[in-house]
């Protein structure tokens, strides 16, 4: 199996690529200099004023707004079953769709706090593995 370092991310500019296992990944959005946004995913131009946008770090934590488990034949080489949800980000009032960690299905519930993780998950549709962001259960913090 390929090491994470050699695997392509599913998209660029959507999440940070942590240099090592101890650094948590963050989601990335975009905002313009006039204070519109942030938007997720990062748009090409600000949809309000058409100015260029700069990158905004959206953090790596959020809570579950809704979640579900896809049990039918999965797309993109995903495991069966896999989980998805809408996550309310902690640092900005944004509700984002994302994969959820399929190894902690029993711990998912509306309102649960999650943290972002990035790792090999599924493929590009033709068998090449990809790095994807997924939210997993946050450890209890001190």
């Amino acid at each position, binding site marked *: 199996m390929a090491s994470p370092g050699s695997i392509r991310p599913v*998209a660029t500019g*959507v999440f940070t690529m942590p240099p090592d296992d101890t650094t948590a990944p963050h989601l990335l959005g975009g905002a313009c200099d006039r204070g519109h946004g942030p938007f997720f995913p990062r748009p090409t131009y600000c949809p309000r004023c058409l100015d260029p946008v700069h990158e905004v770090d959206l953090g790596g934590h959020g809570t579950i707004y*809704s979640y579900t488990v896809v049990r039918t034949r999965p*797309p993109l080489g995903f495991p069966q079953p896999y989980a998805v949800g809408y996550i309310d980000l902690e640092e900005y009032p944004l*509700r984002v769709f994302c994969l959820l960690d399929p190894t902690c299905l029993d711990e998912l519930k509306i309102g649960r706090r999650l943290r972002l993780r990035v790792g090999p998950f599924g493929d590009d549709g033709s068998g090449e593995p990809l790095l994807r962001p997924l939210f997993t259960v946050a450890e209890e913090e001190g």
Partner: protein
Amino acid sequence: MTTPVVIGVGMMPFGKHPERTIVDMGAEVARAALLDAGLAPTDIDMGFFSNVLAGRLFGDATIGQNVLWEVGVNRIPVVNVENACTSGGTAFMLACNAIKAGEAEAVMVVGSEKTAVPQLGLINSGQTELDTQLGLVAPAGFALRACRHMADYGTTLEQLALVAVKNRRHGSLNPAAMYRQLTSVEEVLSSPMIVDPLTRLQCCPNADGAAAVVVASPARARRAGLLPGDPRWVSVRAALLATGSYENPQDLLRWETDYRAAALAYERAGLGPADVDVVELHDAFTIGEIIHCEALGLCPPGEGGLLVQSGATTLGGRVPVNVSGGLLSRGHPTGATGVAQLVELVQQLRGQAGARQVEGAKIGLAQCMGGDKSGDTKSCTMVVLGR
């Protein structure tokens, strides 16, 4: 302002038709619509053809011209329309706009699609979109709404299943429906789980099929032998398309786009929810019907589950919803669905719906929704027909 009139409809049974092509199904219903309207092919002066997946599945393009050529309609402007599940409603809106603008007097709208094919897989909103790449298949988008609806409003699994049971009962009365056997809450809930909490019988089946309507200016309708007040004089009180705002955060229980489009449709038609006699709406998944009934004002927000449980949306109830069987029982050939909804409403308003006739129906409303972006819908069509 010119009020367009639907003067002809054509329909075929939806289902698995491996021997049929998109072109020959489209030609069958286009011919039926022409004969129903009493028009010759040369009377049609514009055509809109609705299809979503032929490019992806079969590598086809500009099929509308092929379909219309089969029924002798050529030379005129023909436009191929793709807008996901609202493609048919979008094509119809464009046809009505052409009539209102005086650019055409009689316009053919055909939707034809084959989705009962092995290469389809799960429908999504576009392979290159981030949400799709993160696993947002169509049933998941609706399941996420269902989970939250259950948590916030106490909507039950039984209420979800009742949508499927009701629409199957309706479908049993419709010769054009794919599924005509009755089902039960127990059978719906014990069918295989697709995406929690939506079981297989709560997801509309893939199907092959086609539907067509001919819409005309009032002057052209008169020349075709119709008069205002005839049961066959079905006028278009509203035909509109809205797209999403994509505002974030989205309230997943109240598609703002759905509410906005419904309000505009009622305003343009000069009526309200209480005036509607029969509704066709986008029940691709059971939760969809519950949420769309709320958006259309058939019940207060949050009470869509109670509404179906009360029997109000069953044939014979206060406001029957999806008497055709809906997408859940008629089947969902994507590009044909929006047109088939209009065929159903026209048959209802003419009093030609047979065993599933809504007695005395005078106002019909069709709602459809398609595509997903940032938790919002990419397209929402509303059509109000009246006689």
